[in-house]
């Protein structure tokens, strides 16, 4: 079972090192980690995917929260989320194969973003499974190069993280602590 954690961290030098160092030190097995800016300049957002069969996702969450620069962490696995992965795939293409590739790209609502006489770059966005299926379909044509972002995720609905670590602003007054008295951050 893969768990998706969303972490808001202070946008300061060395914070990524602290997070990466924590994973190494605690022997946590991380499938992917993405970092980006948010709507608040002082805050960065990480999406972390943990294989829970090898690593206890709750311990990852609690240890992340222990880092002083980590403002909030939420395991969004069981929430309604939009989760996306983006891949750029450079695939071999010639007169004979190009049409077939373009059909696959079309079916998967991917895009061709670069064309050469003997190759194409395909941009595909979606849940990992979709990206993976398209990748598998393109593989027989010859994949020259591939890059993926790893998962980014967002909970559906109008509730939002308050980037400054303040309680969510949608008026939800639920306790930020779960049954074990742990600190969470998202509206229920």
């Amino acid at each position, binding site marked *: 079972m893969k768990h998706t954690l969303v972490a808001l961290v202070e946008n300061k030098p060395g914070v990524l090192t602290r997070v990466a160092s924590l994973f190494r030190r605690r022997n946590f097995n991380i499938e992917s980690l993405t970092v980006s800016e948010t709507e608040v300049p002082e805050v960065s957002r990480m999406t972390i995917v943990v294989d829970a069969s090898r690593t206890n996702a709750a*311990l990852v969450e*609690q240890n992340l929260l222990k*880092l*002083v620069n*980590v403002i909030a962490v939420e395991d969004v696995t069981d929430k309604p989320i939009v989760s996306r992965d983006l891949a750029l795939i450079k695939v071999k293409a010639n007169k004979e194969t190009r049409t077939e590739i373009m059909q696959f790209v079309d079916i998967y609502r991917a895009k061709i973003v670069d064309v050469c006489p003997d190759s194409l770059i395909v941009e595909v966005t979606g849940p990992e499974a979709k990206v993976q299926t398209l990748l598998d379909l393109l593989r027989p044509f010859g994949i020259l190069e591939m890059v993926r972002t790893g998962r980014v995720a967002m909970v559906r609905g109008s509730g939002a993280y308050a980037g*400054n670590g303040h309680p969510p602003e949608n008026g939800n007054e639920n306790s930020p*602590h779960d049954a*074990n*008295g742990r600190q969470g951050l998202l509206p229920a």
Partner: protein
Amino acid sequence: MQLTGAEIIWESLLREGVEVLFGFPGGAILPTYDALSKYPQIHHVLVRHEQNAAHMADGYARASGKVGVCMATSGPGATNLTTGLATAMMDSSSIVAITGQVPTKALGTDAFQETDITGVTLPITKHNFLVTRVEDLARTIREAFHIARTGRPGPVLIDVPKDVQIAQTEFVYPTEPVRLPGYRPQPSGSPEQVRKAAALINAAQRPVILAGHGIIISGAEDELMALAERCDAPVATTLLGISSIPESHPKCLGMMGMHGEAYTNLAIQNADLVVAIGMRFDDRVTGNLASYLPHAQVIHVDIDAAEINKNVPADVGIVGDAKAVLKQLLPLVESRGHGEWWAQIEEWRKDVRARDIIHQEFPDEVLLAPHVMRELWRVTGGSILVTTDVGQHQMWEAQYFRHDRRRQLITSGGLGTMGFALPASMGAKFARPDEEIWCVVGDGGFQMSIPELATIVQEKLDIKIAIINNGFLGMVRQWQELMYDRRYVATPLLQPDFVKLAEAYGILGLRVTRQTELAPAIARARAHRGPVLIDFRVEEEVNVFPMVSPGRALHDMIRRPLHVVATDVTK
């Protein structure tokens, strides 16, 4: 007021209530040391090695409950601090370390004495800071003290480049509460979880309370006692939980774990409910996890949420300060008696007494370390503060000294650091100058601390040093005897003449080789004003029992033999 970074450091330390710090100067911290001349109200203790500065700050913190401070220069000065920081990290001790760093322009160039100390100490500090602007210095120091002393305490390092120490800015020490968006320790427990815990406690037939360092850190000794008395539950302590409850109290079972008494470990393994407070189920406490607590439900109270369910799954986890949670819990706990359970524990206890070497007769010249510990306790009336290192002497002290007073033992538990006891005793002396302080240390560990004898003399510290001298790295030798067919590789060790060594430093040195010499020597050391070193020549090949071998179940102990055969193979 325009001040230099160096002056800001001292002004800020003053505002944090710092009266003493432990350090060693060097190039990159020189501006700060130079400014110290303007602050006579702060006492700087010049150590002989930076590692000991960190241990002294640690000992100061544990003896006082305040933040200990140490200081070092960049590069080797800073890296020398690391063992002390790691020790403080493992034992949740609040220290702030300030290090000099090469000027900001030289950062990353492998300049002379440059080490990326914030990188190095990332996993062994609670948090650390590299201050690159003098404007950030005061606020950073304030945050560092706040982080070090609150929540689960720990070491915080502040790295200050030389140019930041020299640069000037307007000094305003922040007075508003520290606000760190990602740092909000949870003071009290979830009421719902507390109610669940109370229900389990009220329904238990064979409860045991496991008390850890968290009780002492949060000052919850009274609440612990109240809980134990109300639900008639025995209290076992971790090594660092020793003195959270008086060991003479009938409810106290003493130390649990690898070298805990058999009745203590048997009580834990037969309990139907374990209430663990401010402890983290270290492997030295649990033995093999698969066979740990076969019958018990678990209530786990800790300020650090990441400790709950880390090693032992909790039926009820409560995140919060031990004192606050106990205060929430107490009104919900019903008064109970567990006569049958206590009768069983008393059975086990009787059997243990029969085996205790203290109750066996030995010829006078057979001096055992337990004799030393018991006499030290008896002669001093248990009124002293003891520091220990790691190893056999540490376990014997824990077993045979009866700790009835609060904050009475300072020892390196989690990291097991040799060379901790002596500097820790020095730090403790600064925190509690009126206290009689004994550093109990092995001959191996002491040889890691010898240079600080000069500091003891320079600072006129009245510390009594008890060397438990068995000519071996004793605990390692014990493992070699039990697990490596008695191949004593690299464990026999030569010592200098400790008495002459003491005299060379101007310290009174005594030697004890017989049981009858114990009490007079201890009395003489106590009567002497100033430091004393006693070289206790104890039997060499004696093991600490009971012992749970690594990987074995907690109830699967090697018990004390009914008759100890005192052998001395080297003579």
